[in-house]
């Protein structure tokens, strides 16, 4: 009974993390099941490519497995994992650009059954606008609007100051507003 109460007090994330840190692969699998989707979404916005996003999340999970013990607050597990995925995605996107491969698959990945034609066109516009940005800027957008980080969390995740982060986001908004012909 004491053990159950203790686990409830610590919270399910804490318990899962502790078990995974001790080598419990089942617990780690449950963590993967809970957070893979959020990581993949962020990685996709950063890389613009589903395969690269998969590669980034796979690399992020390898890092997470090795460093789970360094997570200071298990209740921040999701933010920690999403930050790792975003940074891995950013690194891959940078490397891809250095090798002069096509920057982003803009429309090829959008052949989604049942997508409204207007929505499809709008998404192509957004994809083109994202393609004109660098990986750092796409990382800011993904963390802010897909992962829901605030400016301080983004600053900590990317190693920048919060005020600089807010300024960059404001500039990005202004730029995207122009490119997307909004307002």
């Amino acid at each position: 009974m004491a053990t159950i109460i203790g686990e409830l007090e610590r919270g399910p994330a804490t318990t899962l993390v502790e078990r995974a840190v001790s080598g419990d692969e089942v617990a780690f699998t449950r963590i993967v099941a809970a957070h893979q989707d959020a990581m993949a979404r962020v990685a996709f916005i950063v890389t613009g490519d589903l395969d690269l996003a998969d590669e980034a999340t796979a690399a992020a999970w390898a890092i997470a497995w090795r460093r789970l013990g360094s997570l200071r607050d298990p209740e921040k597990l999701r933010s920690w994992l999403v930050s790792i995925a975003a940074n891995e995605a950013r690194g891959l996107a940078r490397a891809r650009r250095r090798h002069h491969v096509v920057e982003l698959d803009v429309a090829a990945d959008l052949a989604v059954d049942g997508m409204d034609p207007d929505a499809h066109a709008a998404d192509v516009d957004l994809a083109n606008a994202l393609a004109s940005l660098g990986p750092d800027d796409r990382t800011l957008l993904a963390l802010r609007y897909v992962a829901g980080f605030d400016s301080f969390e983004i600053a900590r995740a990317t190693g920048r100051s919060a005020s600089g982060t807010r300024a960059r986001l404001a500039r990005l908004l202004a730029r995207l507003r122009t490119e997307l012909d909004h307002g």
Partner: protein
Amino acid sequence: MAEPLDFETTLAARLQARAALAARPFDAAAIAIAAVATRPVRRLSIPWPTVTMRWAVLAGAAILAALAGALLAGALLRAEDTGPMLAVTRSDGVYLAKADGTEPRRLFVTDAESRLAWSADGTLLLVLNRPKADAWRASVLRTDGSVVWTMDGVEWAEWSHVGHRVAWADASHYVITDLDTGATAPPVWSPNNTWSSAWSPDDMRIVVIDTDGRSLVVGQLDGGATVRLTSPDIESLFGPAWSPDGRAIAVAYSPACTSPHPCGWGIAIFDVVTGRKIDGTEPTAQGLPDVQWSPDGTRLAWVEAGTGVVADRLPLGDGGGIRFRGDLLAGWAPDGRSLLVRRSGPDFGDFAPPPKLWRVDVDGSHEVLLLEDAWQTAAQPTP
């Protein structure tokens, strides 16, 4: 200023819809197995302590905590330090340490900071922190930790070079508060930008980035004519820094860019009198460079994307600058011979090992680790 909510909300929805394309079925077990295969965890075979042992461990920890508390109290009560100090934000607050990084003592408890800056005479410390989610507060502290001034909602704050005036901005105002007299008023010329401004060395002017994001506006605090600094190839600007002689402003810029290839950031230098861009680096940096002038104004240093550069003032773009490792430039040493540089590990963030503060000679010949766990740093000026 904040973008209108409707566009931001629409953009967020569109980004989330696009991100949903990545939400596909996955095999969690296969992903986990692949990750585990990269490095199997070595299981510990040490048995969990018995109840008696647990009490012994707890008692020992309590004794150690008491000793640590006594030591901390002693540190907090120490009356004075000699020589210039470093102010540094660590994971659990703002600390003061000697210039060599020794004897850090906690001055202010906070877990979220954006900015640290000493007053020009080195007696007061400006801290911009976030007591709760996205609610920012500016505080001015003495070196004993006592609070001189606070203001909520402040998103940007900057010391004057003379006296104890703070130019600060919230979401809709740009105001100057004189802490010596208590007077608070907007400047005669009222800037618009809230995130990035700088006093001129003689305190007679302030430069801000205009609301279009593409030009700098230098305003006379006595209400004289403003000067606009711009260049047709610039789309975004951030972090203006006056040269010590007040004749030039260095700033990070990103060019107008409509090609499918993303644009990076570079450093531009503007002549304050003519308003023209007189030099600049190529916009190849993938991070936002934070540029700072050397104390004598002959050189510039900046850091972007893990690499720092020290370059002669003119010409900047010859690629001949000295390079060093770092992810944030904390500042020049007062003698201009070394730099304070923050470095993180291969990955960074709130959950990775905290970054460290290094002192690096400007010729790259000598590096000294000053502090572990150092996020933002400000070196105390010596009047």
